[in-house]
């Protein structure tokens, strides 16, 4: 009996030993993604399974982590020694993690070398670069913001595209007819992040900023003041009262000439077209004569870059970040997986989860016929040229938090406390003096920074 037990134990140990040795040789990629919606996760799981099928002995584990939780979860994982191999998250968090020294910049360098640096949109790559020129992450997808406008109205009135301060103001004035319930533009005047996004793009085009390259607060400047005054001027052509992004509906109803919005609007504009195809007045007589404008998609143009003292586009991008790991196999598998994710077939599958909202960071993808064939037919309506123009905005993408490749965490805290939107609200809605509002905002920023 005793010998039988020993044999059993020895056998088990042998089998376990073999299994363990097998496992230690198998590579693992734990991939945390900020895409938490079920349909998107299924899509990413599909990509992971495909990669597993193509790469023997590699396991990819997809974990969904809410974007707001990513920093805390990462801190906990690092402390517990269970850091994932790869994460996908927005640029602000990427820069913060990069400063913590847990990012595998060598793998990023390798991927950029393999793919070719020139294939990435320049501005997108710079956003994720450290002060010493390393890459804290690889840009993967992003949205950009700009002015969407009624091309047909502009043509009719002989207006120039709204890509400079003068053009925007002229068009806003020209297209506003309050007596007939028609408005020239939508800019944010509520105390929320949309307001900050719109203001940021205009401020950047005027070379105004929150910080200088040394991290000094330089918000209270003539350039910022000028931007606030200009913003107040534009707000005259807004629909009445404080407004946020929801007022975009007035554009869809044909009551507004221009509006600031991200590329996430694209499927909204296009899906209305799709809806019209199935619910035309031919089948549903009662629908004819409604306010829906079937020509809206065709009549809409996009100005992603605004130029005043310099050219500025505004956007947020998400990147892939490889994290430092002790296992060479895991590092290799992670690099392979990242490159697989940049392969046009898998890249396009990923981007089609939110057509227009998620835009490619590699040049050429936007013109790829496969990319333009999204399941909902969104891109067909825009056409290759328009897509190319839209993603070209990523060459000039800038934000307040990153100055010359250096990120300033205080900018995040200032953003979170809505200092800028409250300043805009007080000027545009409460009629506060711009300089007084700017002084107050600066004082608040200093308080947040603990000065």
């Amino acid at each position: 009996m005793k010998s039988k037990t020993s044999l059993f134990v020895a056998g088990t140990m042998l089998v376990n030993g073999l299994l363990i040795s097998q496992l230690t040789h198998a590579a693992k990629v734990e991939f945390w993604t900020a895409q938490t919606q079920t349909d998107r996760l299924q899509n990413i799981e599909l990509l992971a399974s495909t990669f597993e099928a193509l790469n023997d002995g590699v396991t990819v584990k997809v974990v969904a982590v809410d974007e707001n939780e990513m920093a805390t979860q990462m801190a906990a994982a690092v402390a517990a020694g269970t850091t994932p191999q790869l994460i996908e998250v927005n640029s602000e968090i990427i820069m913060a993690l990069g400063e913590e020294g847990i990012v595998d910049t060598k793998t990023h360098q390798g991927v950029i070398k393999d793919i070719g640096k020139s294939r990435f949109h320049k501005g997108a790559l710079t956003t994720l670069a450290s002060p010493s020129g390393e890459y804290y992450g690889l840009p993967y997808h992003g949205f950009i913001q700009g002015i969407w406008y009624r091309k047909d109205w502009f043509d009719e009135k002989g207006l120039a595209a709204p890509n400079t301060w003068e053009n925007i103001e002229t068009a806003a004035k020209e297209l506003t007819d309050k007596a007939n319930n028609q408005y020239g533009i939508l800019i944010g005047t509520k105390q929320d992040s949309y307001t900050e996004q719109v203001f940021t793009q205009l401020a950047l085009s005027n070379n105004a900023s929150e910080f200088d390259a040394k991290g000094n607060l330089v918000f209270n400047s003539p350039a910022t003041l000028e931007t606030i005054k200009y913003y107040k001027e534009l707000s005259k052509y807004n629909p009445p009262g404080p407004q946020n992004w929801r007022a975009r509906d007035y554009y869809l109803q044909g009551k507004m000439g221009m509006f600031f919005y991200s590329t996430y609007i694209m499927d909204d504009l296009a899906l209305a077209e799709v809806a019209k195809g199935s619910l035309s007045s031919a089948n549903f007589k009662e629908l004819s004569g409604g306010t829906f404008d079937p020509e809206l998609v065709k009549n809409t143009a996009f100005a992603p870059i605004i130029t005043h003292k310099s050219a500025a586009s505004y956007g947020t991008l998400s990147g892939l970040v490889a994290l430092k790991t002790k296992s060479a196999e895991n590092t290799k598998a992670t690099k392979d997986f990242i490159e697989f994710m940049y392969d046009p077939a898998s890249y396009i599958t990923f981007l089609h989860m939110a057509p227009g909202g998620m835009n490619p960071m590699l040049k050429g993808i936007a013109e790829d016929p496969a990319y333009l064939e999204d399941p909902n037919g969104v891109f067909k309506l825009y056409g290759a040229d328009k897509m190319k123009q839209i993603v070209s905005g990523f060459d000039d993408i800038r934000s307040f938090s990153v100055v010359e490749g250096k990120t300033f965490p205080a900018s995040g805290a200032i953003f979170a406390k809505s200092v800028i939107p409250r300043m805009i609200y007080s000027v545009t809605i409460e009629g506060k003096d711009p300089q007084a509002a700017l002084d107050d905002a600066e004082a608040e920023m200093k308080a947040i920074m603990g000065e």
Partner: protein
Amino acid sequence: MSSVLIKNESRLGLKLVAPAVGIIGLLVIYPILFNIYLSFFDVQLNGTKTFVGMENYTDLLGNPRYYHSIGVSVIYLIGTVIGTTVLGLAAAILMNQEFRFRNLARGLILLPYFAPVISVVFGWQFIFDPVNGIYNHVVVDVLHLTDTRENLIGNPDSALFVVIVFDIWKHFPIAYLLFLAKLQSVPKDLYEAAAIDGQNAWGRFWHVTLPELRFVIATVVLLRVIWNLNRFEDVYLLAPNVETLPIFTYYQAFAGIVDQGVAAAISVIQLLVLVGLIWLYVRKVLKW
């Protein structure tokens, strides 16, 4: 009864009361004490606490937005408490009369109170939408009362009054319900006696109804003050730019980075004010 028995009984009494005392202590007393304790610290999300003494309080008392929010809260309280009480009383007196479909009308009056806040708020936002709302359509396009469209909910000058009207409309049914219950128990002969004394309708209301309702009115006012000083959801959902005390607390403490120390300080002050107000009210107005 022997002294042993008395002792045993009192011991049993203590045992029976203990769970209730324990639960109240755990769920009410402990959070209040912990809140007071927290208000003297700079609290970080990871649990780190740095003692800052009275700094949270001095910061708060030096913040002009805090005083502004107190002013807004006072206007909101006066407007809503008077509004709901008067409207509730009027509705109750009306619904106490005999008429056809009275039961149906009594039920319908309660509807605003039953409706979920979120759906009602969206309804109001649609009504007052500056571009598509029915209010502007009627005022500007149909009746031509003004030339310009107004954003009544968004405009800071009118938003507070919209919020007050909303609260009165939404919450007067609870006042109405309490008044109606009491009105139904007022003896008819009191009114008859008053009529014989030559009192008209107004006199009967003044000399019979009001004195009979006195304590119910006082209770309604007390409840409404407590509720509305703490009311967050109605105001925040309808017009987030109306900064009453709870909204101010939210912006200070929970928007963006959570500032638990400051939030604790605000709620401690609010608790003290509320306790003081209620004490005064109970002693002087209710004379309990």
